[in-house]
Structures are given as C-alpha cells and as structure tokens.
C-alpha cells in the first residue's frame, strides 16, 4: 500500500513538473500575447493541481493536506480569473488575437 501511494505521488509530481515546464516554455516561445496566456494557464492550473495533489498524497491525512487542499482551491479560483481579467483588459486596450499575423511572424523568424 505504501509503495503504491509513493508511486502514485511520484507519477503525479513528475507529471506536474512536466506540465509546469511545458507551460513555462510555451509562455516564452509562443508568438503572441493570447497564445502565451494560453500556455501560462497550463502551468497555473494543470501543473499546480498535479504538483499539489502529489504533495497531498505524500502528506497523508494530516493538517498539511487540508492546507494544501485550500491552496489548491484558491489557486483554481484565482488563476483563471486573473487570466480572464488580463485577457479582457488587453482586448479592450485594442490588442487583437490575430492568428494570421502570429503565424506570419513565426514563419518569418
């Protein structure tokens, strides 16, 4: 049972690490603002969920697990809201999610 839980948390943690890393690379490499936002939200939600669940499995049934759960819930509520708020502010400021332009720039560089 113990080894099973350990294995589970390892899988969760490494998957979380991979998602965090992919999101980070995406946020750096993507061609325009909205695609970067899309990549960043991967690290904010999927990566955070996997990492925190992995740590929760390690912690077992303690106060720490409850705190981690609270952190997870608050992150899941606030990060997408922040992304939404930012996207709407950018859109109102006149930055267009222009797919064609983005593709052109990638081909050009």
């Amino acid at each position, binding site marked *: 049972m113990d080894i099973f839980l350990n294995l589970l*948390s*390892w899988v969760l*943690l*490494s998957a*979380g*690490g*991979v998602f*965090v*890393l992919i*999101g*980070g*690379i995406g*946020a*750096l490499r993507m061609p325009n*603002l909205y695609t*970067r*936002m899309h990549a*960043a939200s991967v*690290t*904010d939600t999927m*990566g*955070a969920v996997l*990492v*925190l669940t*992995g*740590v929760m499995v*390690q*912690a077992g049934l*303690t*106060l*720490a697990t409850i*705190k*981690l759960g*609270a*952190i997870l819930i*608050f*992150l899941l509520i*606030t*990060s997408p*809201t*922040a*992304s939404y*708020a*930012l996207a709407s*502010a*950018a859109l*109102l*400021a006149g*930055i267009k999610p222009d797919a064609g332009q983005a593709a052109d720039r990638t081909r050009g560089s």
Partner: protein
Amino acid sequence: MYYAVTIAVLVTMALALTRALIGPTVYDRVLAVNMFGTKTVLLFSVIAFLSGRPDFLDLALAYALINFIGILAVLEFFRSRANKRAEEQRGNPADGGETD
C-alpha cells in the same frame, strides 16, 4: 522526487522572468508576474515538505490568497488610465493628442 519538481519550477520561474523582461507589451509582463506568483506558491509548498516543516504551508496559503490583489490593482490601474484619457479628450479635444 521533490528535487525534480523544484528544479522544474525554478526553470519555469526563470522562463517567466525572461518573459517579464522582454515584454513586449505590458500585458505580457503582467502575465509573467501572475505566472511567477503561482510558481512561488508551488515552490513554497514543495520546499516546506523538502525541509521537513509542513506547518510552513501558511506561506503558500498567504500567496495563494493575496496574489490576486496585485492583478486586480493592475486592472484597476488600466481602467482608471483609460478613463482619464477619455475624459481629457472629451474635456479639451484640441490638445487631446498630447496625452500619449
């Protein structure tokens, strides 16, 4: 295993910092700051376990709750700036172009 996750998060922080440094728009920078905040929460949680003091999760909890305020403040700042510009243009259209 914790080490691997920590390193992944640290590398992502460096990438987010790069994005914050190169911009190009201010929204990119705000996005990077937000991402950096989430990564900080993860790093706090993981290091609390790594150092064997899981009662220090309070710090991660504080950041999970507070980080949102910064983003809202930025949003409010953009809104008040846009309002101010609109008002100035309405007030004296002759030199409205000066504001930029």
